[in-house]
């Protein structure tokens, strides 16, 4: 079953549910899940189940995916917000202007914004927050995207001017990841001082983190009073919690086998959203035999991605044929570029000078789904005479061996971020794809004057890396939010692990 029919059926099911549940009409929007409840409890506590506990509460000190999930948009806000369907909206920035040279950005801050500590937001806080991300000791995953900042000025309390060294059309988008923090705030690894609709209640490490509605919020008040994140290390324990109503919603279901117990039950809704997580078979494009595009194309054509996706996720997930997920503006369906075709694969291998195949080692992270996928790849490639030696490594070894030392032939890895096709423009990245034309397009795209221009260029990048089979993009993970039918208004796509909780309504 393809994705469109699945979501159609999903929508129909939701509609039917809404009709039976509240006797009214229901509808689903693309950006929030669940049936629209007629009456909801304005003071409800939403119990959220998640596998991703924050490591600490500071995203520039290695807080990880968990703190992004709990805090982005809920506790901390940026100048801009990346919406659940991938658009960039003004948030703490009321407005912004770009100078005629394309290098000077002037941001006007929204009036009446207060931090949870009571202090009013000023331009000094914005300057401090951006500088925190680009500081020498920053562990922010976004640090490198701000390398082009030349200076940050604060002409008055409401205005911030940022000057860039070179044009950067993604600058505003990148700012949506920068938390605006009170420049006086202390001990941010255990506490917070943001401007978001919730403030931190208590964080009981290893167990729960609660967010309480912030009475002084500048915008629309959240549709619930409290959100409690419950953290699990075991997916079965998480599913049990949902089955016993200890949690109302699971942010990201990671055990495909468990879905059956929810999809057939009218008390739950299984939402099939778009993720940005891609499973890659990444070649070391520097070293033979993978320095030859024909070899990479042959491998891509020899692996039946659909069968792999079906065996792991059943009817969920998407084939993309490239690095770009549908929520990125430059998405195109490129699954036909290197179709599954054994005859073609054999011909390409012969043309590349490997009529009898070859042998290579596949460095495989030891957690699901990598070992399963590696075994599948091994059996697929055996059909075209290629012998795969599976080498299981830990996530930690992966960073040292593959990411840092580039000591690998091929590896598997999940790449979680949106808009990360631009890594193919960096010849120094771990996979070593080096096409000067692509590097140039990526650079030009970043320096574009308009979004259309940027989109057109990145589409070319996308097409080129697919034509070169720079990597084999096996599939795009599904983003499955399972929720109690009494909930509505939760995010469906959870781009980059964000989970906006302020819209969640619990029926009264």
């Amino acid at each position, binding site marked *: 079953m393809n994705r469109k029919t699945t979501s159609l059926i999903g929508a129909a099911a939701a509609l039917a549910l809404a009709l039976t549940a509240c006797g009214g009409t229901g509808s689903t929007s693309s950006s929030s899940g669940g049936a629209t409840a007629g009456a909801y409890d304005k003071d409800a506590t939403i119990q959220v189940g998640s596998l991703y506990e924050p*490591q*600490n509460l500071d995203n520039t*000190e*290695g807080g*990880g995916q968990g703190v992004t999930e709990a805090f982005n948009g809920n506790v901390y806000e940026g100048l801009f917000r990346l919406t659940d369907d991938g658009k960039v909206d003004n948030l703490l920035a009321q407005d912004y202007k770009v100078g005629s040279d394309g290098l000077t950005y002037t941001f006007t801050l929204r009036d009446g914004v207060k931090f949870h500590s009571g202090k009013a937001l000023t331009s000094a806080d914005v300057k401090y927050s951006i500088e925190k991300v680009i500081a*020498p*000791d*920053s*562990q922010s*995953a*976004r*640090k*490198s995207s701000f390398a082009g900042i030349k200076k940050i000025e604060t002409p008055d309390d409401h205005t911030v001017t940022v000057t860039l060294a070179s044009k950067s059309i993604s600058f505003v988008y990148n700012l949506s990841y920068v938390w605006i923090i009170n420049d006086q705030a202390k001990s941010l*690894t*255990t506490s917070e001082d943001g401007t978001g609709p919730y403030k931190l209640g*208590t964080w*009981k*490490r*290893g*167990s*729960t983190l*609660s967010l309480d509605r912030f009475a002084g919020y500048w915008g629309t008040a959240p549709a619930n009073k409290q959100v*409690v994140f*419950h953290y*699990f*290390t*075991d997916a*079965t*324990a*998480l599913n*049990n*919690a949902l*089955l*016993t109503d*200890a949690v109302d919603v699971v942010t990201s279901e990671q055990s495909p086998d468990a879905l059956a117990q929810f999809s057939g039950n009218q008390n739950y809704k299984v939402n099939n959203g778009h993720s940005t997580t891609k499973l890659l078979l990444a070649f070391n494009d520097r070293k033979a035999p993978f320095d030859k595009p024909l070899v990479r194309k042959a491998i891509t054509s020899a692996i039946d991605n659909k069968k792999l996706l079906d065996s792991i996720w059943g009817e969920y997930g998407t084939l993309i044929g490239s690095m770009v997920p549908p929520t990125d503006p430059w998405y195109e369906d490129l699954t036909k570029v290197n179709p599954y075709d054994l005859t073609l694969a054999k011909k390409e291998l012969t043309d590349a000078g490997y009529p009898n195949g070859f042998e290579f080692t596949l460095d495989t992270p030891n957690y699901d789904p990598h070992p399963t996928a590696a075994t599948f790849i091994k059996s697929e490639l055996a059909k075209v005479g290629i012998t795969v030696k599976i080498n299981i490594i*830990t*996530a*930690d*070894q992966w*960073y*040292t061996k593959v*990411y*840092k030392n580039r000591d690998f032939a091929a590896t598997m*890895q999940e*790449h*979680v*971020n949106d808009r*990360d096709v631009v*890594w193919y423009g960096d010849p120094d990245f771990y996979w070593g794809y080096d096409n000067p034309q692509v590097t140039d397009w990526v650079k030009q795209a970043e320096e574009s004057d308009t979004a259309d221009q940027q989109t057109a260029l990145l589409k070319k990048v996308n097409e080129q890396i697919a034509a070169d089979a720079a990597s084999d993009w096996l599939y795009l993970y599904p983003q499955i939010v399972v929720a109690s039918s009494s909930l509505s208004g939760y995010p469906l796509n959870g781009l980059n692990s964000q989970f906006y909780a302020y819209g969640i309504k619990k029926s009264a």
Partner: protein
Amino acid sequence: MTAYLLRRTAFLVVSLLLAAAVLFLLLRLLPGDPANSLLSVGATPDQIEAARHQIGTDRPLPEQFVSWLGQLATFDLGESFVSTLPVGPEIAARLVVTVPLTLLSFVLAVVVAVPVGFVAAHKANTWYGSILSGVSQLGIAVPVFWVGMLLITVFSLSLRVLPAGGFPQDDWADPVKALTSLTLPVVTVALVMSASLIRYVRSATLDVLGSDYLRTSRALGSSFARAMWRHGLRNAVVPVISILGIELASTFLGAVVVESVFALPGLGGMLVKGLAQHDYPVIQGILFVSTLVVLVIGFVADLVQRLIDPRLRHSLARNAR
């Protein structure tokens, strides 16, 4: 006795130091770099070096070891690499779950195992004696997580009388709520633990039942109950106490598995996460504290045995002379 206490304490301290050294070295032998858990794909080489420097893995090993010992001497377990928070208070917070879980399971297991083990021995030749013995044999073979999952399926998912996991956010503020969340985990541990305890109690009782002194006491006119109380119990309890010491220690460590099945915020979950992230201070801290607990339990068990059994005291006195 004083000399013994002194020697036993010295032994405890030396064991602890040895354990610390072994722990430290073994952890460093694991392949991998803890700095990696701070990184994400896209990290620059500068960021990688900064991470290594921040957590100090770029310093020579002996220097790292000495600085850790120095911290231990001042009861400081250091700070987690990953969360940057102090490890000591975090362990203390986790003990709020793990210690009650261990003690309650222990008490329950003893309460179940002692009478059952006694009956299994006393009535060894009857059909229910054999059944008790067989069931306890089976219990030893069953893995603890399986019992946990079974109990969850029955009492949480089907009957819906007890929570499937988790612990109240405000800990013991509401004792009833806290006890409710601990019920299934405690029963799980106690069931598995009592299975092996029953075996020990049964064999200790069998030894006593076949002993000459019990027969003599009975011949002198004591009732069975009185003979058992005066002579049997004291003799049977000695081997059981040394086993109890080991069992209590292994329950404490076995909590790791149970806590994960029941999503309890105890020491176990913290250890598993620490291991996955190569968070040396966290792993070292937990294992050091666990070692301390195990050694102290052994120490206490030894003392109790000596108090109960005069033979041990006397042989000791002879050795001391």
